[in-house]
């Protein structure tokens, strides 16, 4: 072990560098937010007075409960959409199953705020659907009224998270579990409720808690629907309208973090001792029942209805991007390419910025994610697990909180020319990189876990040093997985908004998502905003396709592995 010294020195340097990066760009900003929330305004001692103020302010308390209500109702409605689809696709022979599976990718392609305005035009008080309902039946339905609008939009965007997790859990149940129940006299929905659903509960909870947190943290969707009395929007409004010295923005941020952590903790608590890993023990896959013609028709009706709802924001966005004028009518008055000309002309800076920021952020993520994965899985460095935990905590930090933290922590840090560090565009990149790091980290783990250690040992046995083994064996074999991680990070970074919203200082530094948000605020800008949205969706969809391709290729290359 004479070499161990130099070897672990290199590893330790790498680990320290990563720790420093995470410390400066994740821990310090978040700690600053927490610290400010607990200190008196103007730099006094530690206090709880800010939280008392928060509890005494009607607006904040109302916003808090509104956020809880919206998140909970979104989970309820998302479950109502996901349950029948999961049941249908995992327990019956159903040709539409493929269609349902592809739904899982839609929320990744387009975050809910992108389609918010389009959904107003389709489902709002004077939107297409209500105009038609009014004409035919003389009724209007308040799909988009106040909080309902947020719930409606979030539910149709996020139900695939529940669907995907629940379906996977349902598929993993040993089929003997359900056959035993049938054998003892149970069948149909009753069987599903008593046996399949409880066994799939871990999958459902995982999806539901994710949806709850995502909705709770969302800033842009409520704001674009003109709903201000929710907690995350309040944090943003407070900081941008009153300034970074006002403690309320920080208190709200701490509450947001608290809710995210509490949700994850609660779901872990509910799931404790419920890890029914009932993998198939012998005997084929699940026995799926054939649908009778009547049932089949009903199944298709349900799937098509849900699919229509899910695609509505996309269709609305597309229409809006080509519309001349669209108000008080089911469809636009006329069609034009002018919006695209505009965004590809004078607004093309948004697109350039997005491409630049997302590639840089994704690059940082893949390098750091790959390095952490290597340190954790392949070295014995003490404390290596902490890097993983630190990077993963980014999941519990809402974007708006990270943005506020950056602003507060880095505004005082001046560049040589006097501009504050927080005003530089590179800070936007770093915030996005931190936000997306957990995704790239998982991808890197997956890629590295698929490589047998013996491949590396063989290289060392033949005389390659650790560093050369990494370069000649590990990295080439990880390429597919890392590429998939890069593209996924890139795609999700391209539509990241909540942190960006706080950090953008000038329009020329703004990425596409920010431009879309600003344009969508005014009726005159909607068309151009929608055109940006369509471009973003196409960009992300292409990336997702590429990521899938990269993942497939690495799957095939895995034939080489052991």
């Amino acid at each position: 072990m004479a070499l161990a010294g130099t070897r672990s020195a290199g590893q330790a340097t790498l680990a320290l560098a990563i720790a420093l990066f995470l410390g400066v760009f994740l821990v310090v900003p978040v700690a600053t937010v927490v610290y400010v929330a607990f200190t008196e305004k103007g730099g006094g001692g530690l206090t709880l007075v800010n939280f008392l103020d928060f509890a005494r302010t009607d607006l904040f308390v109302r916003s808090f409960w509104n956020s809880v209500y919206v998140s909970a109702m979104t989970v309820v409605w998302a479950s109502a959409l996901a349950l029948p689809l999961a049941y249908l696709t995992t327990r019956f022979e159903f040709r539409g199953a493929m269609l349902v599976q592809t739904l899982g990718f839609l929320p990744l392609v387009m975050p809910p705020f992108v389609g918010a305005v389009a959904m107003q035009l389709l489902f709002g008080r004077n939107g297409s659907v209500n105009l038609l309902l009014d004409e035919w039946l003389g009724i209007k339905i308040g799909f988009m009224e106040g909080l309902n609008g947020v719930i409606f939009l979030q539910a149709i965007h996020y139900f695939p998270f529940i669907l995907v997790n629940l379906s996977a859990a349902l598929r993993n149940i040993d089929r003997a579990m359900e056959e035993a129940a049938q054998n003892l006299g149970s069948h149909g929905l009753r069987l599903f409720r008593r046996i399949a659903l409880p066994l799939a509960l871990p999958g459902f909870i995982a999806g539901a808690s994710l949806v709850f947190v995502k909705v709770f943290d969302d800033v842009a969707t409520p704001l674009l629907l003109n709903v201000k009395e929710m907690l995350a929007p309040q944090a943003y409004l407070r900081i941008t309208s009153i300034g970074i010295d006002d403690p309320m923005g920080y208190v709200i941020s701490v509450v947001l973090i608290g809710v995210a952590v509490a949700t994850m903790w609660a779901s872990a608590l509910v799931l404790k001792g419920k890890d029914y890993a009932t993998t198939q023990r012998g005997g084929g896959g699940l026995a799926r029942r054939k649908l009778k013609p009547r049932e089949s028709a009903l199944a298709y009706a349900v799937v098509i209805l849900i699919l229509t709802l899910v695609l509505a924001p996309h269709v609305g966005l597309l229409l809006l991007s080509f519309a001349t004028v669209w108000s008080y009518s089911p469809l636009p008055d006329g069609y034009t390419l002018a919006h695209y000309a505009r965004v590809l002309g004078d607004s093309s800076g948004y697109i350039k910025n997005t491409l630049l920021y997302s590639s840089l952020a994704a690059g940082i993520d893949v390098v750091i994610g790959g390095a952490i994965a290597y340190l954790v899985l392949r070295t014995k460095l003490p404390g290596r697990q902490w890097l993983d935990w630190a990077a993963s905590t980014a999941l519990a930090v809402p974007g708006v909180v990270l943005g506020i933290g950056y602003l507060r922590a880095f505004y005082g840090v001046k560049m040589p020319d006097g501009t504050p560090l927080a005003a530089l565009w590179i800070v936007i990149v770093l915030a996005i990189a931190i936000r997306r790091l957990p995704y790239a980290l998982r991808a890197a783990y997956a890629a590295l876990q698929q490589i047998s250690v013996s491949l590396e040992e063989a290289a060392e046995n033949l005389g390659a040093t650790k560093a050369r083994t990494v370069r000649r064996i590990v990295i080439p074999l990880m390429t597919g997985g890392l590429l998939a991680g890069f593209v996924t990070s890139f795609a999700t970074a391209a539509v990241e908004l909540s942190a960006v919203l706080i950090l953008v200082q000038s329009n020329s530094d703004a990425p596409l998502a920010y431009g879309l948000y600003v344009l969508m605020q005014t009726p005159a800008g909607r068309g151009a905003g929608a055109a940006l949205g369509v471009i973003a969706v196409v960009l992300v969809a292409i990336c997702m396709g590429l990521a899938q391709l990269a993942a497939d290729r690495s799957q095939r290359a895995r034939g080489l592995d052991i």
Partner: protein
Amino acid sequence: MSKPVRAVGIEIAGVNLSYGTTHVLKNVDLSVRPGELFAFLGPSGCGKTTLLRLIAGFAQAETGRVLLDGRDVAPLPPWKRDVGMVFQSYALWPHMTVAKNVAFGLEERRLPRAEIDRRVAEALDLVGLSDYAGRRPAQLSGGQQQRVAVARTIAIEPKVLLLDEPLSNLDAKMRVSVRRELRALQQRLGLTTIFVTHDQEEANTICDRIAVMDAGTVRQVGTPMELYENPANLFVASFLGSANILGDGDGIPVPAGKRLVFRPQHATLSSIDGVPLRGPVTHREFLGATVRYNVQVGGSEILVETPFQSGGELRTVGDMVGVALPPERMLYLPA
């Protein structure tokens, strides 16, 4: 339930079943008598589990009929058959206690609560697990889990009991005691029971009769001893115990289309004079009670097992020996 139930017979007639292009069951005819413990025995992939699942309603036959107590069960879904099945993996529901697991089938039958409680207690008592009613399945040993699975099944007082490789998830020591318990329980209940296994010892030791299956067909049905003494074909002869199989031209004339079959322990080694089967010893193994010789006779290698006596004469590899065979031990089976 502790009192004997009215035992029911099972008739399987002309059953064919395929999964895609694989013909899993080919013209299966079987008759299980009321109250007997009957084994489906065969190598893996022979269709024995599929046949069991067919009786339980988890597989559909293309042709043929399954009669329970003289009634065709084809139109009945699994939950209306009253056929109790114990799954190979036991399939105990991890989110329910032992008592809840056992109560499940009774609850599905909408029995009154008091009746359910009484029968759950009775079933758990029968398998000796009354003290474990409040436990979760994960807190039990493999053998206890298996008893819960049995209790859960017999609690509904099924017409017949189906056991799918019930001993395969137990360690070797447990198997011997559990198979005796199963036999004792089956006798006490008088319940017609089918026992699926690939292990001839399990089938031989506890079952009244055995159907030997191979490649989707039933090759022979009989008591363990009948099958051993009078195998109807080469498959049964070699699957149950070991058998020497000789064709024509190895020294003894064999009729066209037949093979000569005998057990290794029925042959003895002799001098080569006047014996049609003879050749050199190629291998010798000491097995404790017996010594096993391989003798090269013509194109075939013959196994001969002789009792071991201390101080007895042993042959060594290379010795020329004769293989003597009493005529009543020679079987001529279709090739």
